[in-house]
C-alpha cells in the first residue's frame, strides 16, 4: 500500500544530517516514503506546525518537544536526530573581549545572549550553571539570533553569548570575543539534541510509515559512521542548509542517534524539572512510538 506524503520540518543545524543523508541516498524512496523537507526558521514553532498539520514529522529540540507535551499537545517521538558528544566543540559560551568572564561564577549579574529563550542552548547552559553551583536566576538572559552575536558583543549590548559554529569561530577570529567555555562537554554522551516528533493520531493511523521513517534513519546513521562517506554527508548538509563552502568544510557533525530510548528522553525531563520548566508529570514511556 502507498504511504501518505510526509512533510518534514528541520532547522539549520547539522543534527539533521541523518535525515538529509536518507533523502539524498534514496533510503526514503526505497521504503516507498514520499518525504518533502521543509526548512523552518524557528525550532520552537515546529510543534505548532505539527499540531496544525503543516508538518507530519518535525525535529524539535527535546526541550521544545517536552514543553509542547507539557502544554497539552499529543505528540510522540518517531525517531531521533544528532547526539551529544564530549568531542563536540561546536557551541559554547563566548564572552566579550575585556569582559573578564572565565567560568560559570563570572556569569552572575551579567547579560548573556542566547539564540532562543527556553530553547536547547539556553536550557543546557542553565543546567551547566546549576551543575557548577551557580544560581541561574541571577543571570540576565536575552534572546538574540546567531548572526547578531558578533555585533552585539562588539557594541557592548551583551557581556557574553551562547553561540555555535560557524558564528563562534567568526567572533573569535575577529577578536570581538573569546570562548570562555565549551560548556557542552559537561553533558553526558549520547542524548539526542534533536528528536523527530509527530502527532500521536498520525502515528496510530500510519504505523508503517513511522516505522519506515525510523528505519531509513537507522540506515543513514550507518552510512554516516563510515569515514569514507564524509564528503557525501557534507554535501547533503550543504544542500539543505545554505552555508558558505569554507564553513561547510569545517563544521562538526554530531553523531546520529536514530532511535530514542526512555532513558535518553528521561535525561531531558530531569534537566527541565530541575529548572521548573514543566508543570505536569511526564510519562516518558508513552512518548516514544514503537
Amino acid at each position, binding site marked *: 500500500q502507498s504511504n501518505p506524503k510526509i512533510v518534514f520540518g528541520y532547522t539549520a543545524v547539522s543534527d539533521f544530517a541523518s535525515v538529509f543523508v536518507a533523502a539524498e541516498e534514496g533510503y526514503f524512496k526505497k521504503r516507498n516514503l514520499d518525504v518533502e523537507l521543509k526548512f523552518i526558521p524557528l525550532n520552537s514553532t515546529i510543534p*505548532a*506546525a505539527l499540531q496544525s498539520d503543516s508538518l507530519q514529522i518535525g525535529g524539535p529540540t527535546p526541550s521544545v518537544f517536552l514543553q509542547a507535551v507539557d502544554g497539552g499537545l499529543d505528540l510522540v517521538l518517531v525517531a531521533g536526530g544528532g547526539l551529544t558528544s564530549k568531542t563536540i566543540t561546536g557551541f559554547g559560551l563566548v564572552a566579550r573581549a575585556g569582559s573578564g568572564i572565565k567560568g560559570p561564577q563570572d556569569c552572575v549579574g551579567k547579560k548573556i545572549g542566547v539564540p532562543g529563550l527556553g530553547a536547547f542552548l539556553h536550557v543546557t547552559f542553565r543546567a551547566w550553571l546549576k551543575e557548577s553551583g551557580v544560581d541561574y536566576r541571577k543571570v540576565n538572559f536575552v534572546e538574540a539570533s546567531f548572526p547578531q552575536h558578533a555585533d552585539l558583543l*562588539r557594541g557592548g549590548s551583551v557581556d557574553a553569548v551562547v553561540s555555535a559554529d560557524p558564528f563562534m569561530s567568526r567572533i573569535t577570529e575577529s577578536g570581538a570575543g573569546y570562548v570562555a567555555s565549551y560548556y557542552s562537554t559537561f553533558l553526558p554522551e549520547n542524548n539526542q539534541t534533536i528528536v523527530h516528533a509527530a502527532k500521536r493520531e498520525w502515528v496510530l493511523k500510519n504505523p508503517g510509515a513511522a516505522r519506515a521513517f525510523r528505519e531509513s534513519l537507522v540506515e543513514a546513521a550507518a552510512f554516516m559512521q563510515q569515514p569514507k562517506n564524509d564528503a557525501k554527508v557534507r554535501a547533503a548538509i550543504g544542500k539543505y542548509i545554505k552555508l558558505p563552502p569554507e564553513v561547510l568544510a569545517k563544521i562538526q557533525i554530531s553523531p546520529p542517534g536514530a532511535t530514542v530510548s526512555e532513558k535518553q528522553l528521561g535525561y531531558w525531563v530531569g534537566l527541565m524539572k530541575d529548572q521548573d520548566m514543566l508543570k505536569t508529570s511526564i510519562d516518558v514511556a508513552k512518548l516514544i512510538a514503537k
Partner: protein
Amino acid sequence: MTERRLLRWLRPWVFPALLVGAFEWYARRAAALGSDALAPPSAAARAFMGAALDGSLWQATGFTLGTAALGLLLGAVLGIALGLVLGLSRRAAQLGSLSIEVLRPVPSVALIPLAMLTFGFGVRMELAIVAFATFWPLLVLVQSAVQQIEPRLLEVSRVLGLSARERAFKIVLPAIAARLFVALRLGVAVALVVAVTVEIAANPNGMGYAMMIAQQSFDPALMLAWLGWIGVVGFAVNAGMVLLQRVVARRMGVLP
C-alpha cells in the same frame, strides 16, 4: 534655466544619496571589523540582482502581495459590511460599541502565536492575522463615513421616495466612496506591514521570511536587498492606490 531644471530634478535624490553613501561607508567599516550582520548597499545591489535573476524575488513578493491582498479582501468585506450596518442603525452601533472598543485595540501581532497554534504555517495563518488587522480600521472608518453622510441627502431620498435599494446604491455608497477609498488605502498599508511582520516573526514564506533567512545564513547583503525591496514594493503599492483614488475621484466629479 536648464541648470535650475536640473537642480529641481536632482533635489529629491540628494538626501537618499547622502543616506546611502553614509551607510556604505559605515557598513564597509563594520564589515572590515568582522560584522556578520551589516553589508554595504553596493553589495546589496549585487545580491538583489541575483535574487531577481533566479526568480526567488518574484516568488516571495508574489506570496506576500497575494496573501496581503486576500487577507485585506476578507477583512475589508467583513469590516465594510458591519460598518454599514453600524453606521445606518444607531441602536446597533450603541449595542456593539463596548465590545468593539475592547476588541479593537488588541494588537494584531499579539495573535501571531495563537494563529500559529491554530493554523500552522502557510497562507491561512497569515490570512487570518491580516484580515483581523484590516477588519478594525475598515469597520471604524466605514461606520463613521456612513454616520457623516450629509443628513440633507438622506432627507432628499425620503422626499423623493427612493426605495431602500435605490437609497443604498444611489445615495449611501456614492456618498461614502471617497472616505471608503481613504480607508482602503490605510487597509492596504496595514495589510502589507502586517503580512511582512508575520513572515518575519513566524510564517516561513514570502518577503519577510526571505529577509530573515538571508540574515540567518550570513548574507547581510541579501538581507539589506530585501529590506530595500520591501520599501520599494510598499512605495509602489501606495503610489498605485493614490493613482487609482484620483481616477475614481475624477470619475465621480469630486475632482474636476
